[in-house]
């Protein structure tokens, strides 16, 4: 139960940040693929750097263990990514 409360709480932050970064807007998503607006990349890469550093530090300090790391299937990940990109570029979500 408490896990659900955490999920709800983190979800609110997640949604708030996506909205405030402008990633709920069609033109922000589409324009990153048109190479005219790099908000999506700035947002994604900053999030990656912060969370990567934090998680690996916490793991090194022995505070957390990693959850299941998404499995790597080279063909699946690449083909899935290719199909996903088409959808993302035409919906703008």
């Amino acid at each position, binding site marked *: 139960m408490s*896990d659900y409360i*955490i*999920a*709800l709480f*983190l*979800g*609110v*932050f*997640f*949604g*708030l*940040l*996506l*909205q*405030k*970064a*402008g990633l*709920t*807007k*069609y*033109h922000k998503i589409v324009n*990153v*693929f048109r190479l005219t607006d790099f908000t*999506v990349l*700035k*947002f994604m*890469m*900053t*999030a*990656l*750097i*912060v*969370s*990567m550093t*934090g*998680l690996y530090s916490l793991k090194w300090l022995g*505070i957390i*263990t990693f*959850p299941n790391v*998404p*499995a*790597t*299937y080279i063909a699946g*990940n*690449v*083909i*899935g*990514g*290719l*199909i*996903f*990109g*088409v*959808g*993302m*570029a*035409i*919906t*703008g*979500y």
Partner: protein
Amino acid sequence: MKVLITQFRKEEWSPYIAGALLGLVGILAVFLSDNLLGASGAFENIAGLIGQAVAPEAFDNVYFNYVMPPGITWGVVLMVGVFFGGMLGAKSSRTWKLRMISDEQWKVVFGNKWWKRWLIAFVGAIILEYGAGIAGGCTSGLAISGGMLLAPAAFLFIAGMFASGIITAWLVYGRRF
């Protein structure tokens, strides 16, 4: 304090600030409940739940039994939070509004017909969710959450997503605006 409130009410934050805060949310998700942020999985959990109620035989397969078990999962609750979080964001900057077409740029490219926007979004979303299903996640669940654990899958996915996204955008929009 007042400065913070003014900042909070701004419609658009610096993507670096928002991104850094999302990074912290990602860390908290692992720290507090040993879960990863993700969006596309929640759809499959719900779809599976409905599917098993309506057509149990069609949904009795490896994918729904083992890969993506149906149910009200952590990710589903997270998405409920995202809905309200997004609303809070728009409300706080007083830009919250119901629209049939949400974006001016879309109107420039495709015109004013709202059903066209909905139809293209519907078809595109099917493609998008299908891709996410094959890859094992979406922008948040695989690219960001996988990337922060340095999973190779995430970087393969990001490469694929941008390669086809750029090509698609070029084919569909070209120099149209």
